[in-house]
């Protein structure tokens, strides 16, 4: 179903009820149901699901994956080092999304397919930068495939964040930054570390992942787990997942000021509807320009767009860049509306 008029016989990757599947390798990519062999792009819940017999992932991500999946067979591979499954050569390449995230390259000698998984092109001190790969067929995410999504520089965002942080501690309020606990939280802590000696307190969900990041040598700013006993206004920034908004976790820091770090914060209406008054535009996904750049650099003759604004991206590629593009329904993306 994936391939329509390709010159090659059979498509290397097809869609099955379990997810994307490479019949020649007998391996699924980020399957959403238990399978025998799973190739995992990264450890976010919508891509890494428990229950499969054997997992392959990029080296560096196995610790996070183990935390997510529990007791499973996980085989890590270094970036760029190919291994064979059946007649297919498979390799993991940096995706720049979160620690240990990967694009997956599959080569059966006739064609090369690349599945990007989630990725970004902006630099991130917590993971290796995205690496463009030449291929025949590219399967790309499209979470933010609209020209309104153009990420500001991290310098700009961090200036804004520090200004907001200082403003509220001067006014005796605890600054609380809500963001996804795997990846976004650590990225922000690493950016803080590069710019200051500021320290943060984190929610338990973030703390567990911080340990794994530090184990992999990622430099985070000084942090401690927010404890029950600390009461009152904190001059540290509190970093917590969005689910804590309105929960008892925040009570101990009262009064608090909430902000959210997410690509969705680019739109004022989205921020205002979320009842969060300060938003920082930080995303671990590719923005519009990065998506287009990536498609061009891959030199793919056929592109499939998975989750997000797939309709816009495929129309743009077909109509304006002359690249054959199609939408591909998957179960990735949008988990509780949070930009992961």
């Amino acid at each position, binding site marked *: 179903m994936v391939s329509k008029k390709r010159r090659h016989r059979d498509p290397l990757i097809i869609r099955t009820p379990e997810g994307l599947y490479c019949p020649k390798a007998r391996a699924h990519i980020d399957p959403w149901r238990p399978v025998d062999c799973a190739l995992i792009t990264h450890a976010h819940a919508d891509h890494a699901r428990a229950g499969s017999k054997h997992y392959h992932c990029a080296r560096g991500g196995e610790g996070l994956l183990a935390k997510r999946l529990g007791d499973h067979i996980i085989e890590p591979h270094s970036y760029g080092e190919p291994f064979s499954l059946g007649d297919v050569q498979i390799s993991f390449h940096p995706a720049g999304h979160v620690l240990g995230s990967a694009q997956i390259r599959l080569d059966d000698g006739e064609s090369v397919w690349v599945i990007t998984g989630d990725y970004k092109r902006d630099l991130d001190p917590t993971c290796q930068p995205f690496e463009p790969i030449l291929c025949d067929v590219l399967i790309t995410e499209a979470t933010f495939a609209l020209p309104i999504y153009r990420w500001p*520089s991290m310098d700009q965002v961090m200036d804004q964040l520090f200004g907001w942080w200082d403003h509220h501690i001067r006014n005796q309020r605890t600054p609380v930054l809500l963001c996804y606990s795997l990846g976004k939280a650590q990225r922000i802590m690493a950016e803080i570390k590069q710019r200051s000696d500021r320290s943060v307190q984190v929610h338990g969900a973030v703390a567990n992942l911080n340990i794994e990041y530090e184990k992999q040598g990622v430099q985070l700013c000084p942090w401690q787990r927010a404890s029950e006993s600390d009461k009152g206004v904190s001059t540290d920034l509190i970093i917590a997942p969005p689910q804590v908004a309105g929960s008892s976790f925040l009570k101990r820091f009262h009064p608090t000021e909430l902000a959210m770090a997410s690509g969705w914060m*680019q739109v004022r*209406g989205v921020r205002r509807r979320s009842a969060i008054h300060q938003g920082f535009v930080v995303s671990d996904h590719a923005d519009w320009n990065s998506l287009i750049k990536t498609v061009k650099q891959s030199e793919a003759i056929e592109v499939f767009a998975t989750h997000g604004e797939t309709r816009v991206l495929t129309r743009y590629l077909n109509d304006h860049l002359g690249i054959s593009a199609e939408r591909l329904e998957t179960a990735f993306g949008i988990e509780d509306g949070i930009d992961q």
Partner: protein
Amino acid sequence: MNFVHLFQMLDTNQSTNAKRSALVEFIETAHPLESALAVEALTGRRERRQLKPSLLKQAAYQAFADESWLFEECYAAVGDLSETLAILLANQEAVSQTEDPVLAQWQACQRELSKKEPDALTSDLLGLLSVMSRDEAFLFLKLSSGGFRVGVSKGLVHDAIARAIDMDRAVIEERMMGAFIPDEDWLHRLKEPVTQHELDARPLPFLLANPLSESDVLELDPNHVAVEYKWDGIRAQLIKTHETIRLWSRGDQDITEQFPDIIEAATTLPSQLILDGEILAGSPEQLQTFNDLQTRLNRKRITQNLLKTNPAFFKAYDLLRFDGEDMRTQPLTVRKNILSKINVIQSQVIYPAAHQDIQDMRLKARIEGAEGIMIKDRQSTYVGGRKTGHWWKWKLDPMTADCVLIYAQAGHGRRASLHSDYTLACWNQNNELVPVAKAYSGLTDAELKAMDQWIRKHTLQKFGPVRQVEAVQVFEIGFEGIARSTRHKSGIALRFPRILRWRQDVGPQDADHLSHFETLMSDSNAV
């Protein structure tokens, strides 16, 4: 601080306090012309559209050329035209400068742009946006296209101005009335010393009443109190100085502009006067409901038509200043006496000789359209707040019954085509529905319309203009009193029956029995 910075502070802070401090800081630190133009925009005085939305779209189409569908996709995702353009066409790398004034310059740009032909205009606009930061572009477009809104009220702006220059808010509100000239001297004009006239134009703290129950009333000495009706309107002070007439509500709001009819009526009053009283809907002869009054408060513009459909008047009951003299330390009887000589609509007052007189007045309150009675110490002075021993209020308990609609008839005047006059019945001992009341009003227009349609569809018989309908619809009626009557089949007559609400939640079997009225009657006799 400049306007861009102020906007960022207002937009990203949720608490009123934080917004107020941002406004205060802005007024204190901004260039006076910047703050003048900002205040003009924030108080909704700049409604003129310099750039039409269609022109903004045209600029976007020009920028996107053959990819204009992509612009439409973006617009759909963002939901706001100015914001979409700002995101797409402003300089993403530019950081808003937050100090130097921007508004005067933007106004000049708008004026220049509006003089141009559409094609040149869109090119110039694109050039302008490309050197602005996103917030700057957003604000520039919002202000230019007339859609600027940010979550601050006019009152909050006035409050912030008052704090920034350490002035009384009432004086600021007064000075901000009418035309506002946004120039560099605006703060100086506001800061000029408070004149005696302005002091005179300020409302005085309202005296509030304490609630009272029946047993409390028996403990009062009737010879020491005055009694009047308690009106269901808007408590207000009517303030007339040498120069102005103003109405201030208890909520510290100047509501002069909402009631031109009351202001007009007050022109014949002596000046240097403050009256305490109630704004009521309708006329002294024909009171309307509180809802009719709300309509007046909620409108931004009071049209001639609204003055006709929702007239209002001021019923005075106290005199706080007379001929420039503070009357508040005078006893109530003295104030009432002088008030009675002023040609103004005023609340009738009685000086009871016995407890019975107080209770009689309360029983009559309903008929008068009042919600109870006020009992005031004859010797009391007028002081601000809820002081004990000055004023008491004794509200009415409504008499009600649930009745079934059995006949309907077309109304008159505005309701000529609607079946709005209802004959309502209750159950007797033989399980028959017997008429107890005819009621005319109390339903909303929408309810009346719905009922009219229902009546037409469920008519059993017609007797001339009267339709007998299926006994299905139940209404709660309110009334002032019950008397025995030999002329009615039910044996009772209700005084001033009116529909309180349409009981769509109950069926005819749930309506009241005659015995309910018997009980009410014996209760009211006991009072």
